[in-house]
């Protein structure tokens, strides 16, 4: 009986949190599904006056015969964000491992340097970044976006992974190395699997930062076929007026893949993997 009451309390709290998380999105949904605006407002529970999917048709190009282009841009977003997630974790993991486990000259300076990069607002750095990427012949290429996004996701990824690696008992690697594995093999085959939740969160973070980024993508890419979805979305905001309906519809479309990916990935990535590997 006591268990039931407890479970009920937990569910009530969580449902409350979900409502809190969903409520503003309800407004976005209402705008997205409304054919002709919201009405005058001044009410608590939003609902479209005239339900319609026309905004989704406009946002995805189905209304203007550009749906092939939209699919292509969706694929761009997925590849760029996916590649960013993989590349940033691939670069960050060894660096974080070295920072967690090895002693080397410049370690402390490197760590504080990494932290310092996050403290500097990017207000004046867009022009120099454009210049550097153009020198590297990375303008107007998805690879350029991937490289730029990965680099900017690195500091967080390294800190996050370093902390996760430090939480893993050293004995695990030492056992593997006693068995004849090199340090690198021990890192790949013992440490990385044990840190899978942290790797997943780091990858998710990099994915999300690339998925929603707009200014850099709009600045670096100069062909519509190379645009990512946030750039396409932002086109609905003009200087004098904005098409909120399609913008809201597009935002919903953009957020669905993220939630699908998260739903599929979380089950295996957040459910106590370490318990097994520590004991094993």
């Amino acid at each position: 009986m006591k268990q039931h009451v407890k479970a009920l309390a937990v569910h009530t709290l969580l449902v409350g949190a979900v409502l809190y998380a969903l409520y503003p999105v309800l407004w976005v949904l209402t705008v997205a599904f409304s054919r002709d605006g919201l009405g005058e407002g001044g009410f608590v529970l939003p609902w479209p006056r005239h339900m319609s999917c026309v905004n989704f048709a406009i946002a995805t190009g189905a209304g203007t015969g550009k749906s092939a282009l939209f699919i292509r841009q969706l694929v761009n977003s997925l590849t760029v964000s996916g590649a960013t997630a993989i590349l940033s974790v691939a670069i960050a993991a060894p660096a974080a491992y070295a920072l967690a486990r090895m002693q080397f000259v410049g370690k402390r300076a490197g760590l504080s340097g990494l932290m310092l990069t996050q403290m500097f607002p990017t207000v004046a750095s867009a022009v120099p970044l454009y210049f550097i990427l153009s020198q590297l012949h990375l303008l107007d290429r998805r690879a350029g976006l991937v490289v730029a996004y990965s680099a900017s996701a690195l500091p967080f990824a390294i800190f996050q992974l370093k902390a996760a690696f430090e939480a893993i008992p050293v004995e695990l690697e030492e056992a593997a190395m006693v068995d004849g594995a090199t340090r690198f093999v021990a890192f790949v085959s013992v440490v990385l699997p044990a840190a899978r939740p942290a790797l997943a969160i780091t990858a998710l973070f990099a994915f999300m930062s690339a998925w929603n980024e707009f200014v850099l993508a709009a600045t670096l890419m100069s062909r519509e076929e190379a645009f990512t979805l946030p750039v396409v979305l932002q086109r609905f905001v003009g200087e004098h007026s904005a098409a909120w309906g399609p913008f809201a519809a597009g935002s919903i479309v953009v957020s669905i893949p993220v939630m699908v990916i998260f739903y599929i990935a979380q089950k295996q990535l957040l459910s106590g993997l370490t318990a097994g590997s520590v004991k094993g």
Partner: protein
Amino acid sequence: MKPWLIAFLTFAVAIGLVASDCKTAPKNHIVLWHAYRGAEEQALLELTARYEAQTGTTVEVLAVPFLAYASKLSSAIEREQGPDLFIDAHERLGSYRDDGLLARADDAFPKSDIPRYDTIASAVARDEDGTAWGVPFALKGVALIVNTNLVKDVPDSIEALVKQRYDRIYPLAYEAESAYVHAPWLHAFGGTMLGPDDSYGFVGEPARRSVAFARRLVSSGAVPAGADGALVKQLFESGKAAAIIGGPGVVSELPLSVPYRVVPLPPLHEASLRPEPFLTVELLFLAQRSATRPEVSAFARFLASDDSAKTRVRAQVVANSSTWRNTDAIAPHLRAFHEAALASRPMSTRVAMRATWEPVEQAIRAVLRAQSDDAAAIDAALAESARRFESAKPRATSASPARGLTALAATLFVIAIIAYRNTKPRFWSGLRASAGAYAYVMHAAIAVFLLVVLPLAAGAVTSFFSGSRNHMTYAGIGNYVDILTARGGPLLGYGSFYRTLLVTVGWTLINVACHVTIGLCLAVLLSRPLLRAKGIYRTLLIIPWAVPSYVTALAYKGMFHQQFGAVNALLRNFGAQPVSWFSQFSTAFAANVATNVWLGFPFMMVVMLGALTNVPKDVLEAADIDGATPWQRFRHVTFPLLLPQLAPAVVLGAVWTFNMFNVVFLVSGGEPDNQTDILVSEAYRWAFTRHAQYGYAAAYAVLIFGILWLTSRFSRRWQREGA
């Protein structure tokens, strides 16, 4: 696998990615950029296709989002990567020309063509010497849009229009707090936004009478207070506003159910001049590299020709005067917008024009929201806005570069000495012993240095310069002195560095505390082993992170609207008084915090969920067996084990929140009176709205950096002492 093999493979993949999508630029190829959408874009694409078929030229058309347009243009054209031809508003002509981005357009717009365009449009495309810098293309301005169900005959004055009384319907709705839409009143009373010699125009009798007029409109209940563009449109669509002031963009998105008519703004009875709205003339600009390419001029002539105008006039108000003389079927609302455009005032092309919006809007807001409408309050608001315009002006600071170079050399020398003295005898052997570790960190070091550190450092260097883009002059530490002395104003005055710093610190502390608390509670609840539907909860709870924040931040702004927002509707349901959220610091700040907490808690929750999986189950079980209560288990076992893993997310979260400008920008917009601005949003204002003072903005960035750096140093020292 060996580390070097991995290194090699990563580089190989990177190079493969680089080589994968290459771009070729054939001759006889023209690149055209624009920010149009909808019907205007369709017309442009149709004409381009026709031109390609006629001439064999290939044209690449790119639609760039408006928000990125100007910055993309200038970075791309400077690197010769940009368009050959682009469409933009005439008011940016001045800064584009001064930055050397434009080619003369005398071939595309010869003197003999002047009569072909509306006089008002021809005039803005040429400078004082008669040189053409663009080709007139389209006109954008506002007019009065009336709902013909409610307004049968358009009254002959604004006063008569707002005197109409309806049941719960506003006779007129417009963005009362926008300087752009307020401008007609100012012009009617004989004022200007920007006076001669870049002086501030929103002063004296015209400004006073215009804000008094706007205040009467709002306080009599004829015009809704604090409406933004979206709300004005919403009111009109739902039949809650009989007339609105808006542009062609509003009309093209109206539902068919609303019968409307467009007319030029009726005059003001009490004013002597016509209420001229601002006019924007969209011009075809030739990028500087097109100077030697006659085919680009030919294409520009084609797009702007009277023949092409017949296609374009389906979607926009073309600048070709002959089109309007024809009696062809042109949408009546476009004809009305054209008529209104001819009675409008082109915006100034001066760079200083952009710096007038902020102080003017502050004055309008102050007057519209004041409790009483005595003349003294209006005078005080106007004086304050003029003071702000003056204090935001670029200071003519210049310093001798020699001194700067000496200082730089001295700094480098000191750093070298410190580095040398700190180099222990074991340094070189240590370096050799570190080689193995370097194989692990090398990629990260290179990537971060090249793509993060270098751009930031280059940005930091601009903080020693003043002026805009191509006219930077060395200013030494002038920018820093200016900021740290609050530009000579009171040190804790509104908008001063120190006051903004206090707001920023409060902002950061409250946000991070809420993020961590909510994130941790949810993560702990979601980690209960027997919980059902975990996956669903988790996925629904990351929604605030998944939906693009631009749109949700604006949804929040809408929710906090005084009259039409959901929050006040809820308060009314409970019998409480509605709150005017953005007119005082505390509530505006609370609205910002509410938005940012909502946006940021899922990230913390996910990080903590991950960290919780690293808490060994056996330790918890052991504690359980020892009879620890759940709280004790959390407090003494889980939490200490979590802490080291939370530290990076919390520290970085704090740093990011410190620099989180878009929530402040989108929700409160700094209201009231920039009081809720944080340091970064202040920096952005200097870079983009106040005379484009990049150096000044960069100095802000360096100071923010310095503050965070000092904080982290001290907090580490305190930690060490505490431990």
